[in-house]
């Protein structure tokens, strides 16, 4: 990045049920406004239509909560992380909670480019017993491929879901259903979505709760 700014602050944050239906672009603007309310000197891109210098590691799909999300906030002045967190934390809506802030070197690659995978906790409503449910998960793991279609813009794209699922682990029963953890590829080349996996498992429209627990990076430096 050849543009000027004083500090690149990496923020870890969590989002809860009250904001899980906020889309990614709306959430980005929510951050921009919160930073303005916090009177933090957000850097903007140069040019005719300046954009806020705010980069999220990965868009959180609508309906998901996030336990440990990451964003880089570019500032025009240097801040002590504690002061930064206090100011920003008090200006975000109640469903977004900041956990940690840390300045990172400007030459580090973008969060997005380093993301490799993401781990999700999925609760799905079902009347199935644990053994049947586990058999269903095992059945997916044993498959050689899982061809699916996904809409990208106006066209249908065919892809294989199976190699995007890196680990799949039954967690146990939960209220009204069953719960599992899944780690899926999530890199610039391919991103697996747990709701696609649910559909493939036969739970296309079953009520569910999905939390992204952790973002896994190739290397952060």
């Amino acid at each position, binding site marked *: 990045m050849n543009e000027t700014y004083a500090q690149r602050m990496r923020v870890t944050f969590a989002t809860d*049920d*009250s*904001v899980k*239906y*906020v*889309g990614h672009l*709306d*959430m980005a*603007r*929510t951050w*921009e*406004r*919160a*930073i*303005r*309310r916090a*009177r933090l000197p957000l850097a*903007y891109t140069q040019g*005719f239509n*300046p954009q806020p210098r705010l980069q999220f590691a990965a868009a959180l799909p*609508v*309906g998901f909560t996030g336990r440990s999300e990451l964003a880089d906030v570019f500032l025009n002045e240097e801040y002590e992380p504690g002061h930064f967190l206090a100011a920003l934390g008090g*200006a*975000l*809506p*109640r*469903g977004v909670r900041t956990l940690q802030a840390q300045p990172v070197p400007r030459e580090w690659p973008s969060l997005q480019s380093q993301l490799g995978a993401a781990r999700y906790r999925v609760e799905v409503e079902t009347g199935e017993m644990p053994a049947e449910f586990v058999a269903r998960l095992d059945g997916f793991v044993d498959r050689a491929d899982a061809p699916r279609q996904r809409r990208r813009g106006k066209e249908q794209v065919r892809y294989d879901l199976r190699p995007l699922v890196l680990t799949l682990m039954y967690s146990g029963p939960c209220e009204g259903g069953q719960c599992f953890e899944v780690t899926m590829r999530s890199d610039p080349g391919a991103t697996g979505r747990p709701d696609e996996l649910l559909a493939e498992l036969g739970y296309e*429209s079953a*009520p569910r*709760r999905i939390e992204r627990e952790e973002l896994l990076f190739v290397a952060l430096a």
Partner: protein
Amino acid sequence: MNPDTVRTELPDPGRSASAFDQADLTPDAISRALDRVLPFVQKPVRYTGGEWNSVLKPWDEIPYRLALVFPDVYELGMSNLGMMVLYDAVNSQPDMLAERAYTPWIDMQQGMRRLAIPLYSLETRHPLRAFDVIGFSLPYEQLYTNVLTTLDLAGIALRSVERAEDAPLILAGGSACLNPEPVYAFFDAFFVGEGEEAITEIVRTWTDARATGLSRQEALRWLAEVRGIYIPSFYDVSYTPDGRVQAVTPRAEHADVAPAVVSKRIVPVLPPPVTKFIVPFMDIVQNRAAIEIQRGCTRGCRFCQAGMVFRPVRERPVDEVLAAVEDLIRQTGFEEIGLLSLSSSDYGRIQELVDQIVARYGDEKLSINLPSLRIDSFSVQLMEALERGRRRSGFTFAPEAATDRLREVINKSISTQALLDTAREVYSRGWPTIKLYFMIGHPTQTLADVQAIADLAHDVRRVGHAALGKNANVRVSVSTLVPKPHTPFQWAPLADEATLREHLAVLDRQLRSPGITLSWNEPRETLLEAALSRGDRRLADVVQRAWELGASFDAWGDQLDVNVWWQAFADCGLDPEWYARRARTADEVLPWDHISVGVSKPFMLREYKKALQGEITGDCREKCYACGILTEFRAERRPLPGNAWGCPPASKLISEPIAHE
């Protein structure tokens, strides 16, 4: 979503008040049920609340609970400043809470009906039925059917007389209830006038009355004594043999509490502006915070309901506006702030206000929106100051008529020459677009006046072309005059459809030209608006019938089906043309005569007669034309400084007796 499929599914069997008669769901149960619906609807964030500056109070500890409802989708309702003002007024009371609800879009309605989720508030997700008072904001008539949808989704009987003894008070306020009669049956009470102080009094009075064990009916009698409250069930309406209203009179048993005429209530001085504006997550219609810099207008345009009903003019001091701008930026982080009034150029210290804002925020990423500017070079200078260094999009002017003669009829005096001079200045300073608002169907309008709209649009475009070449364009927007209650034109008929179509055809033919675009309202939709706004109590059956036949979201062009409405009129044996297109005589009892906005009927009649003679009435800041406001509100005026209102000092009152007509 395909609107066609939606419409056919609308009158589904779930559409009755009995759908939600089961026990009320708790907020937690509602939240759980929502997770089964929200993943499958468009824009789910409309239904989840949690926005910055939304107020979450401990429900069980708060004795007075108000649900504020704007009966259209979230993005429209959230853009309404009045809702925000009332929300703030109630929530700043420690023992009260106000929470919001909007009408869910059709996909969400279907999901809620399927899972029997009652309409709930966005803040604590309590069913609307659990509130003490449900206050509807009704700024326009096209929301009437959505009121019924909203009540139905809340599990509340549609008609006041059918309502359960323990149901909340169903209240309405806003410009579309200045003639409350077409929806009289659905509301227990209406509030007439400016609600920011009255709302807490209303909620307290009702809730206290119920808490002391009074019945619904007895509590309404308490409420009737609150100034500005109209309880429609306390009045009888009689009709002449040909169907006109003969009289609206308080019923004998309520005449002790129900006034013969309900007068609007005002705030003598504008309360401080709201700065804890709710900041939505999603894009809404107006993506900005707003400050009302002035209420009312002294220009006296004869078609303009707002100009009549928001009298007297009250200005907010410059210092208060500036402090509010600062506070809004800190509290909301919005990138745009609108400075609202009916006529910004008439704000006494507008130059100073603009200069100060530019001095303080000129270098920040903040846009200031200043609508409703007069057509003169002063406006151009103001906009130039505000938009310095920013991309220039467009300039909007509302001459409303295209000939000097017709502008005298409507009392909006501005010469064609002045308009062209201003247009030249706008284009030559780099704005590529001028939007021009006109109306057709004004009293005394002829084809020549309509032709003049086309000629003027071409003249403006020519001026623009000289300055900017092909980039210059004109957007002409033509609406049809709906003669509104409480305006001097209230006696005038809506223009007949053949004439309107002929006039629109002339414009359409002549304005198909490079650099000019034309938009207009469909005459059938205008007929519906006119019939609803000029109607009497019998229209309540029509509104309900139309809703039963599937009418909803009538303010949405792609949702409105006027044929459903004509069917509803026919089913009720009524004729929309009779309501909309019948000229009313001076001695006719108008269906809204028992509601007073403080402007006297003799004044309005005088203005109507002057209109027909092409005689103008000046700006009443300069000279008083005895509209009746100062008489009506003399008690409010007395303790205030002489310049608190836009009305001139008493010495400048002209002696024009009010009762001589």
